[in-house]
């Protein structure tokens, strides 16, 4: 069916509306079925997706406000396909492992709305539609953190909402200015991304627009100075909130960089490489050290996801196919690994209602299955080869080495300090004798939790050993984008920096 994308976007929303009718205690089953259907739809999208063609597929274009060029324009390519797949999968697994007790029905409805907005962000090719879904995605997350959160939840939810909202307003200004320049150059209003791609802007315009988009995306990533909302959001959010927040919402920022900032402003992107690289390295090292100092298990993982996003940012600005492809893959791997880690923290939180590491000790003896899964996820997050974590990290570091060796070595320390804080977390909670009384008789994983974690472990191992089916479409789209950026770049140093892979040259 050719309207697959619209179905993918609006099916969860309609189902959510119907959800109001469903009675309370069968809400969870309803949620799981809807999420499962959505997941199979996205699987169907993957199978009917043609990996070799790098351009946009399943495109839908319906003019909404013709004279202002705002049209309902959807499309998917190698880069966005797998993020959509991960979104639907993580929502399904999140709902399956939902451990929230009170008003589950509202939670299911909010989650389905959230899924609509998330999928919408990754499929939309029109700036306004992108912005619409971008802002809408904040609202359900605000409720999830605000209503089902911990003690400081209102502060965290409001801070999260306002912080991201302020950033995206500046991005909106950038979009409007971009549309205005498009209109002044071509005489026609248009917000369609493909038209904007064709627009070659003078460098100072590019610099300003890049800055505007940068602030909008940097807060969402979150990049170094703007990251302080994340520990609060994760600290107060319920497990399902943290899983979705870490798995998908952080990827919107980096996806924005790859979809908007790079192709639209190639010259500005090249000029911005060093500042962003410095920021990302600070991000990687600084947050890894802060993670090491944490007492609360969930904060460790929250800070670790900032550190991993630093690596993703580095990959994006490596300006070569290995780097960008690696960063897209790292987005997927971080989504799955940190999503699973948050679920694991949720498991122990449900049993002990505390996340403080020194409350636990020697759990490996008491809950062996839980310890094994946590160990595998830990190794994936530290980047052990043959797990999903290594492929992305390796490609990013390879890619960025071409830009500057010293920075790559600095960024490379992430595998060291990454293992420092993860292993110290594992040792404090799992190794050592069982000191606390309460830990003596903790039950191991029950069916619900195992059924949601085992698929994630399977994916982590499968994509670590055989990432080819995922890497090829990403590779094609990234090479096509780089090729496009190379032709579009005006300044000479941009042309030299953007490294078009030799294979695309022969293929041309």
């Amino acid at each position, binding site marked *: 069916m050719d309207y697959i994308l619209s179905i993918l976007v609006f099916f969860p929303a309609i189902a959510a509306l119907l959800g109001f009718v469903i009675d309370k205690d069968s809400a969870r089953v309803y949620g799981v079925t809807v999420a499962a259907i959505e997941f199979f739809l996205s699987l169907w999208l993957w199978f009917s997706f043609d990996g070799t063609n790098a351009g946009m597929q399943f495109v839908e274009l319906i003019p909404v406000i013709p004279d202002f060029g705002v049209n309902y324009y959807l499309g998917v390519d190698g880069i966005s396909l797998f993020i959509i797949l991960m979104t639907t999968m993580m929502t399904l697994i999140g709902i399956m492992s939902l451990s929230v007790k009170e008003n589950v029905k509202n939670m299911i409805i909010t989650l389905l709305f959230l899924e609509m907005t998330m999928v919408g962000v990754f499929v939309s090719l029109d700036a306004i539609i992108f912005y619409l879904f971008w802002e809408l995605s904040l609202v359900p997350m605000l409720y999830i953190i605000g209503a089902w959160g911990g003690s400081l939840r209102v502060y965290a939810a409001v801070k999260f909402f306002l912080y991201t909202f302020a950033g995206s307003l500046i991005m909106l200004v950038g979009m409007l200015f971009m549309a205005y320049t498009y209109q002044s150059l071509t005489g026609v209003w248009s917000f369609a991304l493909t038209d904007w791609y064709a627009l070659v802007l003078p460098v100072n315009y590019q610099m300003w627009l890049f800055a505007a988009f940068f602030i909008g995306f940097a807060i969402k990533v979150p990049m170094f100075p703007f990251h302080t909302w994340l520990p609060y959001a994760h600290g107060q959010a319920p497990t399902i909130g943290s899983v979705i927040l870490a798995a998908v919402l952080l990827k919107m920022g980096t996806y924005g960089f790859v979809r908007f900032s790079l192709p639209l402003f190639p010259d500005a992107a090249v000029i911005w490489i060093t500042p962003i690289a410095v920021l990302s390295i600070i991000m990687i090292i600084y947050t890894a050290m802060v993670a090491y100092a944490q007492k609360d298990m969930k904060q460790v993982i929250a800070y670790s996801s900032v550190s991993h996003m630093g690596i993703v940012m580095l990959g994006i600005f490596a300006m070569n196919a290995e780097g960008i492809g690696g960063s897209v893959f790292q987005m997927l791997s971080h989504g799955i690994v940190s999503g699973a880690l948050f679920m694991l923290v949720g498991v122990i939180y449900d049993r002990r209602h505390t996340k403080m590491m020194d409350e636990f000790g020697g759990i490996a003896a008491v809950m062996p299955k839980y310890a094994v899964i946590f160990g595998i996820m830990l190794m994936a997050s530290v980047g052990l080869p*043959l797990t999903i974590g290594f492929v992305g990290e390796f490609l990013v570091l390879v890619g960025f080495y071409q830009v500057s060796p010293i920075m790559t070595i600095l960024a490379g320390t992430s595998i060291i300090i990454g293992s420092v804080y993860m292993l110290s977390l594992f040792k404090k909670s799992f190794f050592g004798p069982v000191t606390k009384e309460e830990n003596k008789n903790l039950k191991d994983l029950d069916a619900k939790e195992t059924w949601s974690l085992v698929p994630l472990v399977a994916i982590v191992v499968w994509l670590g050993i055989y990432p080819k089916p995922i890497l090829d479409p990403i590779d094609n789209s990234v090479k096509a984008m780089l090729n496009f950026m190379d032709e579009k770049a005006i300044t000479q140093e941009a042309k030299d920096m953007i490294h078009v892979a030799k*294979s695309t040259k022969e293929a041309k």
Partner: protein
Amino acid sequence: MMENLVYIALFAPLVSSLFAAMFGMSQRKTFVGVIASLLLFTSFVASATLAVEVFTTGEAIAVTMMQWIGMGDLYIPFGFVVDQVSVTMMTMVSLISTIVHVYSIGYMDHDKSFNRFFSYLSAFVFSMMVLVMSDNFAGLFIGWEGVGVCSWLLIGFWYHKPDQSREDNPSISPSWAANEAFIMNRIADLGMLVGLFILYWNVGSLQYDAVFAAIPNLDQWILNGAAIALFIGAMGKSAQFPLHTWLTDAMEGPTPVSALIHAATMVTAGVFLVIRANPLFAVTPEVSYFIAAIGTFVAFFAASMALVNRDLKRIIAFSTLSQLGYMFAAAGLGAYWIALFHLVAHAFFKALLFLGAGNVMHAMHDELDIFKMGGLKKVMRPTYIYMGLASLTLAGIFPLAGFFSKDAIIETAFNEGTYILWIMLVVTAGMTAFYSFRQVFLTFHGTERYDHHEIHPHEMYKFVLIAMSPLAILAVIAGFFKDGFETFVTSLLPAYHMSEHTHHYVWLLTAIVTLFAVGGILLAYFKYNKGLERNEKLENSFIYKLLANQYYIPKLYEELISKPYAMISEKFWHGVDMKIVDRTVDGVAHFLYKSGDVNRRMQTGNLSHYLNWMAVGAVVLMVAAAVTAMIG
């Protein structure tokens, strides 16, 4: 036919690991150990047939399973090559691991997570096979990290042990030692990764043959960079000077682990890397000389620390460290095949030594302090013979393997004209002989220093002793295969012959080394044969304390690296994150709130105030209008 032999050799350990993992949670089942050992044995048989095949036909067998990573111009397949170097390593690894598997059936028999142990051990062997057999640097890196993780799992096997202070347990606890090992290996792996990147961006691919083919047309500083980076990786894995403290702490793991990983296989991975990438190191003379220098220094350094150590397994760990120094010295000086020969020979007798130590530990209820042992000769006769034999080989006495492999290295040092290295290596040979026999005499000879009613030592099970016998035999006869080994291996590695000049002196050189070795043994005999008399003056002399605390390096690392790191991260968290970054964000919000509040106060509800404000506004506008009129 050959292809699936390669796959069998490679995947048999994986199958055994998964099989054992299935029973990971359940109670001890001996058949798990037996099947694991059988699978390992099949892998050994496959490797042996491959060795014969490669020996007869002389050319390598290359196999590509599937593509692993393909992005941009980077293409990394799962490719495996079986050539002279990798087949020797394969056979050595699979043989020793089979023996260790059989040994651990006996050794671990009363440990409740018996099955889990075998799954980790077989997983280790699988990653070691991947490391050895892969045909590209990325595959090597997979094995590299896989081996690191398995050693982390195995060192921290007894994770339930609590942390102890440094005084009564120098490596605090198994889980602490495991983390230390993993993190230290990771530091070196970063260097290795950088080496990979240098090679990739200058060569375009990470396959061995592509890289070695491209070496001639790369300029010197790139080659130097790559060589140094790869050597840093090797240093971490083989615990060379700055990154050596994890090896002695790794003794926290069960003894079969120390025997297999920290004596025979994993620590030699660094030497294997230098041997495997010999074209690169041959072309960079300064780096090779640096490797040789580091190797010799570590040999001497480790031997010095072993002289005074009281822990049975730590002495053997130091001797491994010192022998690794020897191998790096040989590889650094260009004698790659001699390094490989010593690597293989060393694996046999060091594994034997460790397993013997395991028997002693088992008998003495995990008591490790040799000052509290003695007189076990009568009770544990076979173990005594095994450990005596292994120590003799280690010291390098004539008919045994050590003599051929170690002396060859000392000869290369002489042959290369690097006399300082030669002298140090000879002195270290003497020290090696002294401390290994000090340990033998203190444990087996002299008076029983343990109290009888608690510990009544008994010999290990029969089948374990039989399992150890191949190692003993090989330790004895390995020397005689030296020439056959040379012809076999130098078809791939660069040939290395002693010059006429050294041939002329060969008898003199061997005499000197043997003299030092025998001297060491006699000194140990006179000092420790009857028993142990402690003289206080020696023990709290400065040098003794310095060596006992491993030159205070672990304490140095603790004070200079781990404590400041923790303090800085604490500062970062509270200082920067909470105070500066978060404060600014909340400050902005607070500012907006405050300014709003100020305006609120203007709404007094009193009409005249509003009128006043209105008048002020009117006047200001008038003034502005007048001023602009004036200017305009």
